[in-house]
């Protein structure tokens, strides 16, 4: 394994993953990302093959189990303890390399789409489709979703410059970007003085290394001005491109970037990006709506909506529920809270600007709900993978015997609710702290800041209570609520 000249330097003040004995050496290897991507590509192939050809009962199919139980659970746990590792290992980017070679890739991404509005809309569409089409219960649809993802990444990145798919389209990537804002690690500059002296700026422009081209960041994040994890895929191009070994994967204060409104490369100021705030709101409120879709009261509500609308289709009331839950309700809450903040502080800032800035304080609360929800599925079903894989391989003719069915639980059942509750309360604390720091950053005075942050803390408390209520509801996993 070659370290590509990225030998760790002693004496850095912050813990650097690249300096760790085994992991650091692996990550410094030029082909490490390809290795991770190839591993997930193999998993994606299993999902597609089993989804298309295997038994169509979700719990007995790898396409039902791997994406919806394991991948989602591991994503949130990895975001919690590390960072955006799943974008780093994204298999959809492998065909992109091929696309770059065979498709023209000349056009710039359309100016009108250079924002997060499209991605936020696609996220709403995805979450709605997840419920309306019961993606979780259909291995066949899940397989086609994966195929569509590969095709989308191939076409978009084959036709447009840069990493347009990651930055502007990919709903999964947006989930990772936003939630990695509370992760404890980031790709960052080790010593800022070195960057000031640097004349080549290879971390963004790329360079030639040993006769081959080493790309710089394709998401246009210039390390010297990069802040946090937003839009960072952990692709490590900047790490390999920097001729001074001055980029690492460093430990940091989680959530600090949520209240940092300095100008950031590739993004600008958070407070001036309503599209980013909208993306955050979609993700935060979808966390609660997605969990709401799994408890008994949702069926009563949807049935009432159907009667009211005079329809037997589940798609229409679900669409209304989603538009209400992730568009109308958040908009009303944010505008209301921003108006109160403005009134209580006598600030002259526009309401939309206050709302945009404070919206980022809700990221920890949203992440906590995703964590509570996906951790539940992973903790209760993590071990079901083994008999399933055994059956899969046995069907291929390997002499592995017949699989034993038994409990798939990874964690004792009695621990799950307390862990979920702690996650929600930690999310609430972090959201409240971030709201206060944003407030302090805007208003300066601590008393005014406290008053200004109250509406936002109230929203976080309401979300936290909603989360606890959801956890205490009887679970009911139905795909066809009309049948009940």
């Amino acid at each position: 394994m070659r370290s590509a000249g990225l030998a760790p330097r002693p004496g850095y003040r912050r813990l650097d993953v690249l300096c760790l004995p085994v992991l650091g050496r692996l990550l410094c290897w030029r082909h490490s990302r390809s290795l991770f991507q190839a591993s997930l590509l193999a998993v994606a192939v299993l999902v597609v093959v089993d989804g298309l050809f295997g038994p169509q009962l979700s719990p007995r199919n790898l396409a039902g189990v791997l994406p919806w139980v394991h991948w989602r659970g591991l994503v949130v746990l990895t975001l919690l303890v590390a960072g955006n590792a799943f974008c780093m290992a994204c298999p959809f980017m492998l065909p992109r390399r091929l696309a770059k070679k065979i498709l023209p890739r000349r056009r710039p991404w359309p100016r009108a789409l250079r924002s997060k509005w499209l991605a936020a809309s696609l996220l709403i569409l995805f979450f709605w489709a997840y419920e309306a089409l019961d993606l979780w219960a259909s291995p066949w649809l899940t397989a086609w979703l994966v195929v569509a993802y590969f095709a989308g990444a191939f076409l978009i990145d084959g036709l447009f410059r840069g990493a347009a798919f990651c930055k502007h389209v990919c709903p999964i990537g947006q989930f990772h970007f936003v939630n990695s804002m509370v992760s404890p690690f980031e790709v960052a500059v080790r010593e800022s003085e070195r960057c000031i002296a640097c004349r080549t700026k290879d971390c963004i422009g790329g360079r030639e290394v040993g006769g081959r081209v080493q790309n710089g960041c394709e998401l246009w994040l210039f390390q010297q001005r990069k802040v946090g994890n937003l839009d960072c895929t952990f692709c490590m191009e900047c790490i390999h491109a920097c001729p001074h070994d001055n980029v690492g994967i460093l430990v940091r204060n989680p959530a600090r970037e949520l209240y940092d409104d300095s100008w950031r490369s590739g993004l600008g100021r958070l407070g001036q990006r309503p599209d980013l705030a909208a993306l955050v709101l979609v993700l935060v409120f979808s966390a609660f709506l997605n969990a709401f879709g799994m408890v008994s009261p949702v069926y009563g509500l949807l049935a009432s909506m159907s009667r009211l609308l005079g329809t037997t289709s589940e798609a229409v009331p679900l669409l209304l529920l989603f538009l209400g839950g992730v568009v109308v309700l958040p908009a009303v809450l944010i505008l209301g809270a921003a108006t109160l903040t403005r009134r209580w502080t006598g600030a002259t800032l526009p309401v939309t600007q206050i709302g945009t800035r404070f919206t980022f304080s809700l990221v920890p609360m949203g992440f906590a709900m995703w964590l509570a929800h996906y951790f539940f599925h992973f903790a209760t079903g993590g071990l079901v993978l083994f008999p399933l894989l055994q059956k899969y391989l046995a069907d291929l003719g390997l002499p592995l015997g017949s699989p034993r069915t038994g409990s798939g639980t990874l964690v004792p059942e009695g621990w799950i609710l307390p862990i979920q509750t702690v996650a929600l309360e930690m999310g609430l604390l972090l959201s409240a702290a971030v709201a206060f720091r944003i407030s302090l950053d805007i208003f300066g005075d601590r008393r005014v800041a406290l008053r200004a942050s109250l509406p936002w803390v109230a929203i976080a408390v309401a979300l936290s209570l909603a989360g606890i209520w959801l956890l205490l509801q009887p679970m009911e996993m139905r795909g066809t609520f009309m049948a009940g």
Partner: protein
Amino acid sequence: MVPLVQAMRIEASSTAIAPDWEDQTLMTLERTSRAAAALALGAVFLLVSGACRGREAAGDPTVRVDFGVSPTPATVGRARLLLTVTDSADVPVNGASIHIRGDMKHAGMDPVEERAEPLGDGRYIVPGFPFTMAGDWVLTASVTMPDGSLVVRPHPVTVVGEWAPGTSGVRDPRR
């Protein structure tokens, strides 16, 4: 005969003076062949595994397995399953062995497995099948017929819920 090490040196030196276009062609060829090999491997894997892992065989299509679930609608807790097996001539099948597996449609939940007891006249019963959670279930009856052949029949059931606090909504009536 040229010794191996010397031959390698000659090859290395000839490579060193080879024109750029040759290097580039070789590199392109290497890359292309690697990509082609990976694609070919993937395609072979898809074909083989797809062909080998067919959907579960249902067995003789003329055999009928009727499910009765009591109470209706089924609720979280124990339910009585009554199965009736008849052959192509609508004659009750006795002497079959029936294994029932209950899966929730959402992956990640523990399956429930029970054996049905014969009642005679082609009827078989599971007196207390434990539905552990509300939601959509699929009961799969694997019927080993008296002649040894296997018949597999799925049956969807929607279970409505009760709830035991402190269990994240999961209630296990087996305890």
